[in-house]
C-alpha cells in the first residue's frame, strides 16, 4: 500500500516537472508558470496534462498574446474536467487519460457531455473509448451534426463488426459526400445513410450483437 502511495505521489509530482521541462524556451515564463500550476492540479485529479502543454505551446507558436493563451489553457482544463465527469457517468470510476483527452476534444468539436457519456457507454472491447470519441469528434469536425454522429457511431458498434469499422467512418462519410457531389450530398446525409445501413446489419438475424455494458 505504501509503495502504491509513493508511486502515485511520484506520478503526480513528476508529471508537472516534465511539463515545465517541455515548456522551457517554448512559451513565455508567465505561461510556463501558469501551466505548471494547472498541470499540478490536473495531475492530482487524474487528468491528462499533455493537452494543456500542447495548447500553451500552440498559442505561443501562433504568436497569440499571453493572456489569451492563458484563457485557452483554462478553457481546455475545464473541458478535461467535464469529459472526466462524463466518462465517470458512463461507469468508468477512474477513466484513463487518453479517453479524457479524447472526450475533451469531442466537446470542443461540438458534442455535449451527455453525448460523450452515451458514446462511452456503448464503447467496449474491441472498441476503445478513446478511439470511439476521437472518431466521433472527427465526424463532428467534418460537419456531421452531433446527434447524427452519436447515432452513426452507436449503430456501427451495435452492428458488431471489427473495430476498423468505427475507425473507417470518417473516410466512409467523406467517400459518401464525394460520390454524391453531383446531388449535393452533405456529411449529415452521408452519415445518416451509413447509420441506416449499420442499423440494418445490427438487426440482421444471426448477427453477433455486443452485450449491453450496463444491464
Amino acid at each position: 500500500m505504501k509503495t502504491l502511495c509513493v508511486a502515485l505521489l511520484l506520478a503526480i509530482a513528476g508529471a508537472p516537472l516534465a511539463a515545465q521541462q517541455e515548456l522551457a524556451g517554448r512559451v513565455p515564463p508567465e505561461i510556463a508558470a501558469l501551466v505548471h500550476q494547472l498541470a499540478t492540479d490536473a495531475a492530482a485529479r487524474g487528468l491528462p496534462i499533455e493537452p494543456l502543454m500542447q495548447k500553451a505551446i500552440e498559442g505561443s507558436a501562433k504568436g497569440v498574446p499571453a493572456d489569451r493563451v492563458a484563457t485557452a489553457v483554462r478553457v481546455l482544463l475545464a473541458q478535461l474536467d467535464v469529459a472526466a465527469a462524463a466518462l465517470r457517468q458512463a461507469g468508468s470510476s477512474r477513466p484513463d487519460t487518453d479517453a479524457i483527452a479524447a472526450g475533451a476534444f469531442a466537446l470542443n468539436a461540438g458534442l455535449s457531455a451527455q453525448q460523450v457519456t452515451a458514446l462511452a457507454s456503448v464503447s467496449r472491447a474491441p472498441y476503445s473509448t478513446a478511439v470511439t470519441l476521437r472518431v466521433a469528434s472527427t465526424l463532428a469536425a467534418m460537419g456531421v451534426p452531433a446527434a447524427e454522429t452519436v447515432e452513426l457511431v452507436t449503430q456501427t458498434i451495435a452492428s458488431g463488426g471489427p473495430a476498423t469499422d468505427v475507425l473507417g467512418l470518417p473516410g466512409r462519410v467523406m467517400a459518401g459526400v464525394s460520390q454524391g457531389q453531383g446531388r449535393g450530398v452533405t456529411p449529415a446525409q452521408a452519415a445518416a445513410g451509413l447509420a441506416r445501413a449499420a442499423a440494418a446489419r445490427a438487426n440482421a438475424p444471426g448477427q453477433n450483437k455486443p452485450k449491453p455494458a450496463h444491464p
Partner: protein
Amino acid sequence: MTDFHPQVKQLLDGELTLADLPPELRAEGEEALRLLAAVDREPITLPAALGARVLAELRRRAEAPGFWRRLRLRPWTLVPAFAAGAVLALLLSTPAPTRAPAAVTVRFVLFAPEAQQVALAGTFNQWDPAATPLVRTGAPGVWTATLTLPAGQHQYAFVVDGARWVADPAAPAVDDGFGQRNSVLSL
C-alpha cells in the same frame, strides 16, 4: 495474425454451422475450419509405466523433508492464489481491443501558388513552424510533405511564409481556442 469475421469466429466456437454463414463468408469459414483442423493433434498415449513412476516420485517427496512438508495448507492460505487466478482468468478472458497500426504514413498537400515557403506545424512536432517544411512538387503551386505519424488524433495547420497559419482545406477542422481553426487528422 488472421482476424476473422465475428460470424466466422462463431462458427469456430460451434455456435454457427457453415450453412448458417452468408455466402460471402463461406470461403473464409472453410479456410478457418481448415486452419483449425491443421492444429488438431493426434490423441496422446501415455506410457503404461508412467503412472507408477509418478506415484513413486510422489511417495519419495512426501518422505523427504522439504518445502512442501513445511507448508501447511489451510483454507485461507488459498485465498490469494484463488484471487490471483481469478485476476489472470479475467485478464485472459477480456478481449483485447483491435490495435490500429502503430504508425501511418501521411501525405500533406497544399495549393499555395503565391507562397515562398510552406511548413507544417501541429501536435506531432510541438507546433514548431520550422520543423517540417513542405516542398514544391508536381504542378506549379503544389506543396507537399510526407510524414510517418503515430496512430491517434493530431491537430495541425500549414504555416505560409512563416507567418500565416492556414487550416488544411482538405481536412476537417475545429476551433483552436484562439479564433482560428486547426485541421484534424485521425489515424
